[in-house]
């Protein structure tokens, strides 16, 4: 069927660059040719031992872990409030919480940079983590909200009637049942934060910059396939995570909620 061919071609278009990157990463020489002349892992070695990448990886770890740890409980609380708080202007609040998604990266990035300068926090990671929390929060809220909405409100009453305090009810009944949404939220938070580039470009310097920014700097200055190797590692890790997410909670449930 020609329709199926069209879809296959389009999917090919979407995955072609990825294939090229992975292929080039194995090139033995610094000239980027496709198909590669041979197979070599030297660029992987280079990528993994390059000091700036190592420093940036540590930064990425710190920032992403920090942002996720902060965003998860805050986002969960917000999802509970939105679903069960009987808010009159619920949609307004929801839009507000999702608003960081629509702000152009350069605007948010520059804004945070100016804010950091005004507060004398230019060299600290605090502003960077704060920015990441704001950027990651919408994903967490959305994911957890889906789980909360599927929760039977009568379960809370049942637990109360059996003698469980509100806190015990949350721990023994609500939280376990929120696991799918929490896991999805965690996954998105990690992926979004780890890949965040534009805002981080503005808010960090060479000491605090995270991996995508370090990669950007490298690409602008050098032309060897080191970035191809690093990108391949990135792609591999992401594919694994996304596949895992689908196996665990079915991505369709989160992205196509009506099916």
């Amino acid at each position, binding site marked *: 069927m020609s*329709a*199926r061919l069209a*879809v296959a071609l*389009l*999917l090919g278009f*979407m*995955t*072609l*660059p990825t294939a*090229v*990157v992975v292929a080039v990463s194995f090139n033995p020489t610094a000239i*980027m*040719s496709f198909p590669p002349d041979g197979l070599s892992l030297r660029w992987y070695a280079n990528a993994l031992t390059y000091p700036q990448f190592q420093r940036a990886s540590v930064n990425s770890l710190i920032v992403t872990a920090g942002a996720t740890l902060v965003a998860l409980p*805050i986002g969960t*609380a*917000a999802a*509970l*409030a*939105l679903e069960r*708080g009987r*808010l009159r202007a619920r949609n307004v609040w929801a839009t507000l919480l999702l*608003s*960081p998604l*629509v*702000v*152009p*990266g*350069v*605007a*948010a990035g*520059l*804004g*945070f940079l*100016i*804010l950091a*300068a*005004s507060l004398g926090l230019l060299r600290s990671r605090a502003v960077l983590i*704060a920015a990441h929390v*704001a950027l990651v*929060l919408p994903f967490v*809220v959305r994911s957890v909200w889906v789980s909360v909405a599927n929760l039977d409100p009568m379960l809370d009453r049942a637990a109360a009637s059996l003698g469980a305090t509100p806190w015990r009810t949350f721990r023994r009944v609500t939280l376990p049942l929120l696991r799918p949404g929490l896991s999805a939220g965690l996954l998105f938070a990690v992926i979004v934060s*780890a*890949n965040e*580039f*534009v805002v981080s*470009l*503005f808010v960090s310097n060479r000491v605090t910059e995270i991996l995508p920014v370090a*990669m950007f700097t490298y690409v602008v200055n050098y032309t060897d396939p080191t*970035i191809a190797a690093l990108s391949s590692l990135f*792609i591999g890790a*992401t*594919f694994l995570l*996304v596949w895992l997410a689908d196996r665990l909670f*079915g*991505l*369709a449930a989160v*992205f*196509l909620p*009506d*099916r």
Partner: protein
Amino acid sequence: MRLLLVPALAVIAVFALALGALFQYSLLAFVPGSLRTGGVTLENFRGVASPQYLGYVWDTVVLSAATTVLTLLASYPVAYALARTSSRAARSWLLILTLAPFFTGAIVRTYAWLLVLGNTVVTWPVPMLFTERGVLVGLVHFSMPTMILLLAAALSHVDPAYERAAASLGATPARVFWRVTLPLSMPGIVSGSLIVFAWTLSAFPTPELLGGGKVKMIANAVKDLALDSFNWPGAAAFAMLALGLTLALLAGVGRLSAGWHAE
């Protein structure tokens, strides 16, 4: 229970503070050679209205419009397959392939196009790298996952029963698409297009790397002003413009989809 919303609102407040700082600086005078600022002025916005910067805006709008149209055409078939396939495995794979580029991050994807457009795979008949053509390809690739998901969601709301009804009444598949599926998915098409258009207006890594300095969109100009010239007020003003455009477009989307849902 409502109090649980407060921490999230605090985060948004910090975000709003950042935007507030942006707004504030857009109205302060630039002191060349330093990060200090002068008094309140509208000079930055006058600078934004200059031919050079208006040129950036125009280029951005044109490029974004072209991106949106091409993305739409390329995404619709994939979205249709995603929404209509009955095989759970097929749906999973389509979703994974659609989403994975989404999540590999801007640098990786842009770098990949740097390789492909840079004559690594094939030698292009016309130069692709550092041209508007190349940036366009990169932008379309960047926007497809979003467009596919939005279109798929809209299409999954179109009951296949309508298509079957049309077929039973004698319409060929092409006619069914033209007269039933397309009109019914129009709200999704319009809102998806507006969203992609708005996001493309603020695109940064793609034009930055694939444009090589020759193709500049609004975001690139902001970065130049802020990080190269240290003209924070000027950059802020231009960023405010981008913000304003985006918000106006998305407000339009909101209005439209509310109108459609009301029917």
